[in-house]
């Protein structure tokens, strides 16, 4: 902790001593950050340079794990799946959550009770939710296909089809997390000023114009917050997918998280798994920077 800058301080006076005292206060925080963030992180990077399976001897291989990942069809597909899933699992809750918030923002009978009911999915445990949905998705016995048959539609394969599995998983995600977006947007709506609406109405604005040119721009910061939270959640989604499809059929819904779990905890392939983590981290970092940039800009909408 002894700063190398200290010897160059020419006036050993009150200020220098006080500056040194500052550093001491930072030690606990630095220690915690170092122990739980920086050290594991550096260790992961270090491990990613080894060919190491638990139970065997580790060999240093440098960047070989990364080179292999770059040509690994399955890993590259898992990145595509992750983005596809994330995109859908952000957009739909955002649209539906905003719509729900606009509805619940109006006055109508039993509004409080209904709002409570609407937020209930959020309180359920993801694994329990996933198990229930798995049963509902069953192509022969599932209630979803029964409901489709009631309105005369042909049965769907839902998560049992390679093309429908990701949209079906997103359906669970939408059911589960739309209420969260609604709560955030509802908070935003409550904070909006009423004056712009009054003057716009005097000018003869339609409902749609009110929404498009007043509500939406004023809500933008809240929507961005909701989008950021949803993006983080969707990127780290694991439990729902693991329980419902295990990344299948085949590898059709294998996201980076599932691929990572397999490598690390089923195949004990720690070196390769660490490389996956590092790549995933870079992707998340890039995405976070983009979102932060967007957020900066929306302040001026």
């Amino acid at each position, binding site marked *: 902790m002894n700063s190398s800058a200290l010897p160059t301080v020419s006036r050993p006076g009150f200020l220098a001593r006080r500056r040194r005292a500052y550093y001491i206060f930072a030690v606990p925080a630095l220690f915690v950050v170092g122990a739980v963030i920086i050290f594991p992180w550096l260790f992961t990077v270090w491990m990613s340079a080894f060919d190491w*399976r*638990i*139970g*065997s*001897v580790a060999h240093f291989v440098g960047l070989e794990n990364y080179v292999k990942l770059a040509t690994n069809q399955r890993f590259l597909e898992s990145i595509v799946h992750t983005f596809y899933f994330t995109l859908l699992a952000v957009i739909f809750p955002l649209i539906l959550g905003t719509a729900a918030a606009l509805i619940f923002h109006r006055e109508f009978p039993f509004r409080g009770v209904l709002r409570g009911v609407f937020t209930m999915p959020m309180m359920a445990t993801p694994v329990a939710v996933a198990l229930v949905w798995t049963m509902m998705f*069953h*192509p*022969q*016995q599932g209630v979803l296909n029964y409901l489709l048959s009631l309105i005369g539609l042909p*049965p769907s*394969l*839902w*998560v*049992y*089809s*390679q093309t429908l*599995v990701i949209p079906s998983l997103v359906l669970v995600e939408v059911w589960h997390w739309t209420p969260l977006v609604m709560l955030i947007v509802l908070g935003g709506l409550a904070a909006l000023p009423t004056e712009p609406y009054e003057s716009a109405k005097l000018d003869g604005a339609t409902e749609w114009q009110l929404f498009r040119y007043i509500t939406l721009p004023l809500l933008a910061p809240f929507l961005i917050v909701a989008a950021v939270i949803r993006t983080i959640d969707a990127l780290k989604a694991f439990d729902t997918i693991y329980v419902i*499809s*295990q*990344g*299948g*059929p*085949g*590898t059709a819904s294998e996201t980076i998280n599932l691929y990572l779990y*397999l490598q690390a*905890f*089923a*195949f*004990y*392939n720690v070196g390769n798994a660490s490389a996956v983590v590092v790549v995933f981290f870079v992707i998340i970092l890039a995405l976070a920077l983009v979102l932060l940039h967007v957020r900066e800009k929306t302040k001026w909408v």
Partner: protein
Amino acid sequence: MARPTHQDHPDALRRRLLGASAGAVFLGALPGASLGQAPGSGAFDWKRFKGEKIEIFLVKSPRGDLLTKFHKEFEDLTGISVGSEMVPEQQQRQKAVIEFNSGNPSFDVIALSYHVQKRQFAKNNWLTDLRPMIADKSLADPALDFADFAQGGLNYAVEPDGRVNSLPLNLDPWVVYYNKELFDAKGIAFPKTFAEMQDAAARLTDSGKGVAGFVARGLKNANVPVWTSFLLGYGGSFIDGKGKLLTDSSEAIDAGKMYQVMLGKYGPPGVAGFNWNESQSLFLQGKAAMWLDGIGFAQPLEDPTKSRVVGKVGYGVMPAGPKRQVSALFGDGEGISTYSKKKGPAWFYLQWASNKMNQTRMLQAAAGAPVRNSAYAAAQSSSDFKAPKQWVECMLTSARIAQPGLPVISPVTEFRDVFGVALTNMINGADPAAELKKATADFQPVLDKSEKA
């Protein structure tokens, strides 16, 4: 056969085990004939390790629950106190690897599933060779009686170099559940060969009524035993003596084609995502004519609160392939950690856990299919034993023709994953030969590395 033994037939596992137990039990040991001694009776000194304490590491399952429930009995019998931990299967496998790697595991006895952990544990020398203790008359209860153990279980317990690392407890041969009502309606007899099986599936499939002629696992990883069931019948095997995969041989490809037809053509829509539970629920509703899976599902099938096919279920032995009739076998047992400082008491625990009484209880509670042949007779004689007679016959016949359903290798999970993806692709129309070629090429380096390291 790395180590020459004194018997005339060194390749007979049963003989070798019998030799180890001094041949004492060989003569009177027909299944069901030697009832053995009730624990505690006779000259054997169970109290030898009185006052010791051992730790048991089990898998959370009906079998784990059952043993744990009766630990008190072991404590009373031996004066050894038992601490036990039970965790779900996946976590148990992970924790075992981590604990053994630490060189100081917290347990003395560990449950292992042979198809996943046998090679891993043996290669790393994580388990104690039981042979010296089996041979030591002061340590081995005369009622241990290896002649009573089904051959498939003994195959699992013995390593290629002759080491005996565990005692088997539970066998899970794969069988064909069939819906007698659907079979009778079309006047079809239960198939005896693969060709008849395909033919029956074709005739029983009725998509208008939502009936699938055949159902089994299509979900990757879980689906591999379905294909290996076919592979074994076609006379194929997994690996040759030099460690080269045989999974793209013509037998393997034939098995792949059969898998593709049985599931893709006669299976229900969406079968590519089916694990055993989806298959079970379809069969329970009477919407599948045949279901190939492990033998452990009699209880839900005969439970009127869950099943619409109570009393209509036939329990069929896996039909014969063009070359052989084989039932793919899985199983689990218990071994002693090589790091344990209490191997004597731990060995006592193993003997108690696999004794006839516990094996009979396992069957009565429908918690598994015991390795001891005598347990079947014992359980059937009790009035509250509900499993149908045909189930018991099917079990005994299957156990006789059983062979390991997965290769005995360390990276078995990765094997299942790689070939599982190939199989799922086949259901969706991919060419079996091309898929198996690719999977074999992908997996060979993984296997080479695992045996080299």
